[in-house]
């Protein structure tokens, strides 16, 4: 079965499939499942062939032209991809493949259905070199901060935006880069054949590429490469079964090879839905290597409490004035106003549906500001998108914990640090301690309470002036709530203005400097905890018989 490697065509196609799988990996690492890769390969193949045959360019410029052409076509696709999500995105990219193919069939300048022929031949060697370079490049990309942002978007795009990642830009870069890589592969493919036709790059190819990535495993660079290798190899072996001198009973393998392949696909998905190489599997393989990377070990020793970020009394940190919000006909917020200073804890109380989370979403930028104004220190926040507000110093956590499951604790926190911009940075060691979890653990493997702390640490890592905590104590027992209270107090001591929304009345009344009570979108009371406890309106609207105990 090793004989298949003797075949030059097989060797070439093996490398080609690995390269296109790599190209798709770059795109899909941001969660955009593109079925348009064949279209990019076609564009690259045609561009490369054109400059080769009509202008006589040598290899490297040909490949660069292919990459450039594919990238150019990818730009409008990338912008379109930003507008649609999920399955709509998948179908939209599938449309790209088909539209490109049909367009090229009709473009007489590039030979219509006949295509182009007469390119300078390239072989396995050139493809191997390009593949090696590509692997190196993509590995470097994924290890870089940009790669971290891409992987965060894959896990949770909204949380990534809330953490300060410019999701639109990163997604566009991913599509264009992946397209460029695929275009180069297309050009090399054309040179191998010395001719190309539009129907070589059809929907079938796009689906095949997707299968390489999805079967191989999407959480590491190796996955798509392994997937492409195994699938190409398997189909070739099955195709040539007669040549191996095996018992005749296995002769059925060749005509039934697609059914066998299909059956194996179903089996793999049942057993390893995330692909053959899961993140866990790759991590355990790399574990010995990882132990040598001791970056985070240095901060394993108790980190000193960091210096103050902000000093109190320098004017308001956040001013909310006359904020209103409607969902269609439903009024969620009506003329809400309050201010908070640095080094202050303000608790927002209110029944479910009173508007607390809506208010947080409006302040954080997840919901548009329909009425009123928001000022962070002296900057107006009104028109800024969520990730910009995070970079300016407004961080938030979510009611349902949103951490990046496939990233480690350390990576989650480091992502938050990137949004700190030119503000003073908090020490990484201290932030890791805040999570109470080992830095190398995958976030998805942690308990809910640990995940919450990771989320808080990530939000704090951007050195915010204002921190919005949405129900952080949900799911915690009394001891854990006590620890949480300690954490929030220490954040206040750093100078951060903390806005806390929580249903645990004891926690909220216990640590807050001031309370704001919302009911049906209106502020019905504001004041110090003791006053709020005794307020009749608050009793009726929210506290009921609780909160009596001091």
């Amino acid at each position, binding site marked *: 079965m090793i004989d298949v490697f003797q075949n030059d065509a097989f060797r070439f196609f093996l490398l080609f499939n690995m390269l296109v799988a790599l190209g798709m990996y770059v795109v899909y690492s941001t969660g955009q499942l593109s079925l348009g890769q064949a279209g990019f390969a076609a564009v690259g193949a045609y561009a490369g062939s054109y400059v080769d045959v009509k202008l006589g360019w040598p290899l490297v410029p040909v490949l660069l032209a292919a990459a450039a052409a594919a990238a150019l076509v990818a730009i409008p696709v990338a912008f379109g991809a930003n507008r649609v999500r999920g399955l709509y995105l998948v179908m939209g990219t599938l449309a790209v493949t088909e539209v490109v193919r049909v367009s090229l069939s009709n473009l007489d300048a590039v030979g219509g259905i006949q295509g182009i022929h007469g390119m300078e031949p390239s072989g396995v060697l050139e493809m191997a070199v390009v593949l090696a370079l590509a692997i190196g490049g993509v590995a470097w990309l994924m290890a870089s901060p940009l790669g971290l942002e891409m992987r965060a978007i894959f896990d949770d795009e909204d949380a990534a935006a809330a953490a300060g990642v410019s999701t639109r830009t990163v997604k566009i870069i991913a599509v264009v880069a992946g397209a460029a890589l695929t275009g180069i592969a297309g050009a090399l493919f054309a040179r191998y054949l010395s001719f190309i036709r539009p129907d070589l790059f059809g929907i079938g190819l796009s689906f095949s590429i997707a299968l390489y990535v999805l079967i191989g495993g999407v959480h590491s660079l190796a996955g798509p490469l392994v997937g492409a290798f195994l699938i190409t190899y398997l189909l070739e072996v099955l195709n040539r079964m007669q040549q191996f001198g095996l018992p005749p009973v296995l002769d059925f393998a060749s005509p039934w090879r697609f059914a066998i392949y299909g059956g194996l696909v179903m089996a793999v998905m049942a057993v390893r839905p995330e692909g053959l190489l899961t993140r866990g599997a790759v991590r355990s393989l790399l574990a010995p290597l990882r132990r040598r990377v001791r970056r985070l070990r240095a901060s394993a020793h108790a980190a000193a409490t960091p210096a103050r970020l902000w000093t109190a009394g320098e004017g308001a940190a956040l001013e909310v004035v006359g904020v209103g919000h409607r969902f269609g006909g439903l009024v969620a917020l009506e003329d809400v106003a309050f201010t908070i200073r640095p080094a202050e804890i303000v608790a927002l109380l209110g029944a*479910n549906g009173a508007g607390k989370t809506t208010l947080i979403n409006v302040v954080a930028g997840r919901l548009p500001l329909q009425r009123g104004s928001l000022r962070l220190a002296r900057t107006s926040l009104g028109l800024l998108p969520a990730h910009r507000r995070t970079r300016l110093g407004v961080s938030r956590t979510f009611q349902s914990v949103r951490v990046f499951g496939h990233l480690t604790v350390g990576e989650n926190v480091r992502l938050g640090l990137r949004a700190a911009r030119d503000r003073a940075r908090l020490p990484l060691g201290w932030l890791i301690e805040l999570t109470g979890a080992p830095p190398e653990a995958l976030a998805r493997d942690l308990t*809910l309470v640990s995940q919450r702390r990771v989320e808080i640490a990530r939000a704090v890592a951007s050195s915010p002036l204002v921190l919005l905590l949405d129900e952080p104590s*949900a799911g915690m027992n009394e001891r854990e709530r006590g620890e949480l209270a300690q954490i929030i107090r220490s954040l206040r001591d750093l100078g951060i203005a903390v806005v806390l929304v929580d249903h645990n009345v004891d926690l909220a009344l216990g640590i807050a400097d001031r309370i704001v009570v919302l009911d049906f979108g209106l502020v019905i009371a504001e004041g110090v905890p003791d006053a709020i406890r005794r307020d009749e309106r608050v*009793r009726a609207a*929210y506290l*009921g*018989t609780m909160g009596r105990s001091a």
Partner: protein
Amino acid sequence: MQGLVVRYGRLVAVRGVSLTMASGETHVILGRNGAGKSSVLGAIAGLARPAEGRIRWHGEDITAWPAHRRVAAGIALVPEGRGVFVTLTVAENLRLGGFGLPAATRRERVEEALALFPFLRERLAAPAGTLSGGQQQMLGVARALIGRPRLLVLDEPSLGLAPVIVDEFYGQLARLRERGVTILLVEQHVERALRLADVAHVLNLGELVVSGTPDEVARDPRLEIAYLGVKP
């Protein structure tokens, strides 16, 4: 009448928990998060298979029964997060509660449920998602009652609800109790739950630590340890 017996052990979540309920009693399970309370309920409802131990229901061993079979046998669980379908109307949610019943019986039972929670009558055609949290919680209970369960199991019903709503809800539970419904409750609010229950159990780190009347349990120092997590 015999009641429910649960006895099982599982290395990960719960170890050797046993409890027996008699008809008409209200039991409450207390404990911190992670103590295993939801796991116990899951095992009773049929969502999770205990590694060891048996569950006996009115003398029959139901340990291997799937969830929907237990429902048919009279065990109704209202899960954490209310258990209503927000995209369906209130009426449809109630209809689902009596899915396997003949139409006439189902209509009768729905009437009974509406008598208990009259506010639902005005909202029958509204999507359940337009109800407030507390109302949804009560809809979840109403739905569970349509099957005339012999055992009503509630998983943290007060979670995420404003205190004044929780008051109201517990009032409803008390009324159900008066009508003789057997209730098994899992709660974080110690005070409220103890006021309602006949028997209380405390779970700590997956083990049943204390069982007894509310007064006994309230005075038992092990309750505090279970909650505050004093480590040896």
